[in-house]
């Protein structure tokens, strides 16, 4: 049975999505369908230090979110995670499948691999893992921010 009781956020690990360097920074639990996250994203990405992105899709509120998080994760399998996130937040009106394929082409990704990956159980599990760690840490709105290094 899944344990969703209170727990600190997991330490930054090798398969986290990390942009920037340094001990200090921020872990962001973000929803790719969330307008507040999109509005905050330019400021967040310009912060000094490390930015760690964790998935926190609220599917009931933003029905497209699960697909967008899976797409970002699939792009990440080809080394372009943050480029996909930047693009999704920058153009929130174009997030249907054909728009994702345009991005895949623009980023020079392998479309067949992207399509297989984004529908895989592995990626679904990976996204859910982040989401559950956010729930356990008490994330109540997005973007949910935690300072690094953790206290």
């Amino acid at each position, binding site marked *: 049975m899944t344990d*969703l*009781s209170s727990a600190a956020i997991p330490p930054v690990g090798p398969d986290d999505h990390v942009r920037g360097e340094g001990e200090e920074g921020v872990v962001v639990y973000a929803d790719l369908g969330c307008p507040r996250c999109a509005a905050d994203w330019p400021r967040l990405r310009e912060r000094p230090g490390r930015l760690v992105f964790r998935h926190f899709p609220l599917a009931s*509120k933003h029905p497209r979110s699960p697909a967008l998080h899976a797409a970002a994760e699939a792009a990440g399998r080809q080394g372009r995670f943050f480029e996909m996130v930047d693009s999704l937040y920058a153009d929130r009106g174009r997030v249907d499948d054909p728009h994702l394929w345009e991005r895949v082409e623009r980023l020079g990704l392998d479309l067949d691999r992207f399509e297989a990956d984004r529908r895989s159980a592995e990626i679904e599990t990976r996204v859910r893992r982040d989401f559950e760690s956010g729930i356990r840490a008490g994330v109540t709105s997005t973007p949910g921010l935690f300072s690094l290094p953790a206290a």
Partner: protein
Amino acid sequence: MIAVGEQAPDFTLRDQDGEKVSLSDFRGRKVMLVFYPGDFSPVCGDQLSIYQEVKPEIAEKGVELVGISVDSFFAHKAFQEKLGIDTILLSDFEPKGEVARAYGSYIEAPLGFANRTLVLVDEDGKVAWTYESPNPGEFPGANVIFDALS
């Protein structure tokens, strides 16, 4: 707040579809009553949206989640549809806030709505656990619910 160990006051309220729902309908099961200030405020939306995402895990614990506010059941229906949630929402509308008062959750005028309060009612209809937010603008994360159930 109502005290742990007390018999949870029974009530009959209308749900988002106008159907009457009583606390005693849930006897034999656990119920988490989620008192909240009102439909359509951004914080309420986030609270119920986040709980919705972990509803299967809450159900695994044998607990039914039930939201209660002073809004009409018509508003509840629209709110439920807006959020895309299927959590039961009960209308503590007339007399306004009567159930919230019975549970010690009501904030009197000028606010005139329930504070964010969680009340776990056990299979026998007794209060097993409670949580009250420091203020209506803050809400307990879903982790708090799972702490109570673990």
